[in-house]
C-alpha cells in the first residue's frame, strides 16, 4: 500500500491542517459553542486517518510515531482523572474550582470545563486513531504473510 495518486496526496497536504485546526477549535470552544472534547477529538483522529489513507501506512508512520498515541491516550485519561481528584481536596469529587473567575461567553471562563475538554479530546483522538491504526496494520500484516 503506497498510498493514492499524486493529486490526492497534494490536496491532502493542504486540507489535513485545516481539518486538524477545526478539531482543535471544536475542543477549545467546547464550553461556548456546540461540540466538545469528544467530537473535537474524533475530528483530530479523522485528520490523521485522512493522512494514512492518502499516503499509505509506511510514509504516514514516519509522521506519527506510535509512542505519541500511547502517551496521548494515557496522559489525557490521567489529566481528566487528576482534575477530578483536585476537587476532592476541597471535599467534592469533580468540584469546579475557580469557576468564579472569568466572564461568561469568553474563551477563558467556566472553570475547569475547558481543561476537561482538552483532556478528553487528547484521549479520544489518540485512542480512536490507535484503534484505526491497529485494524489497518492487522490487514496489511496478513497480506504480507500470504
Amino acid at each position, binding site marked *: 500500500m503506497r498510498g493514492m495518486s499524486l493529486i490526492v496526496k497534494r490536496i491532502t497536504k493542504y486540507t489535513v491542517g485545516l481539518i486538524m485546526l477545526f478539531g482543535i477549535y*471544536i475542543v477549545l470552544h*467546547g*464550553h*461556548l*459553542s*456546540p*461540540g*466538545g472534547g*469528544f*467530537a473535537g477529538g*474524533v*475530528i483530530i*483522529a*479523522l485528520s490523521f*486517518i485522512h493522512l494514512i*489513507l492518502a499516503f499509505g501506512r509506511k510514509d504516514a508512520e514516519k509522521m506519527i510515531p506510535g509512542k505519541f498515541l500511547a502517551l496521548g*491516550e494515557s496522559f489525557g*485519561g490521567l489529566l*481528566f*482523572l487528576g482534575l*477530578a481528584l483536585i476537587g476532592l481536596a476541597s471535599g467534592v*469529587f*469533580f468540584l*469546579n474550582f475557580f*469557576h*468564579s473567575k*472569568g*466572564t*461568561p*461567553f469568553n474563551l477563558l*471562563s*467556566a*472553570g*475547569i*470545563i475547558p481543561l*476537561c*475538554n482538552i483532556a*478528553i479530546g487528547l*484521549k*479520544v483522538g489518540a*485512542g*480512536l486513531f*490507535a*484503534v*484505526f491504526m*491497529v*485494524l*489497518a*496494520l*492487522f*490487514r496489511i*500484516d*496478513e497480506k504480507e*504473510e*500470504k
Partner: protein
Amino acid sequence: MFELYVVMVFMIIGAVVAVRLRGLLSSVIAVGAVGLGLCVMFLLLRAPDLAITQLVVEILCLVILIRATIGRGISRLQPKANRWILAAFVIFAAGFLYAAYLAIRQVPDFGGALMSTSQFYIANTLSKVKAANIVSAIILDFRGYDTLGEATVLFTSVIAVLAVMRRKGRKKIDERDEPNS
C-alpha cells in the same frame, strides 16, 4: 414535525435495505445513510452537540468498517433462512411492540413537560458554572462522574482492541487453525 417523519421513513428504508442487501459494501453504505439521517434528525430537533458527535463518529465507523472489513476480502454474505429464526423474530417483535406501546403511553408529550432536574440545570448553569454551552456544563460539571465512567469505557475498549490485535501472540500462517473446525 413533518420533516421528522420524512427523515424517519428514510432511516427505516435505509435500515431495511442494509439488512436485505447481499454485498457487504452496499450494506455498510446503507448503514451510513441511516446514521446521517439520525444526524439530520438531531439538527431538526435543535441538538447541534449530538449532531456533530453523531456525524463525526459515523464517518469514523464507516472508514474503519470499510478499511478493516471490506479490505480483508469479506465482501459477500450468505444468509441462512430458517423458520425457527423467523418464529423467534415474530415473537420478540410482538413482545417489543406491546412493551413499547405500554411505555409510550406513559411518556410526556413531545418536547413538553421537563423534569425538575433539567429545570434546575437551565436556571442555574449561567450563574453557577459560567459556561455558555449548557450541554457541556451538564456533562462536565453537574454530571462529571458519568463522563469519567464513559472515558473509562472508551479507554478499556481501546486497550481491548490493542490486546486482541497485538502482534506478539499471533500464530504464524502455517500453524494457524483451520477455519470452521
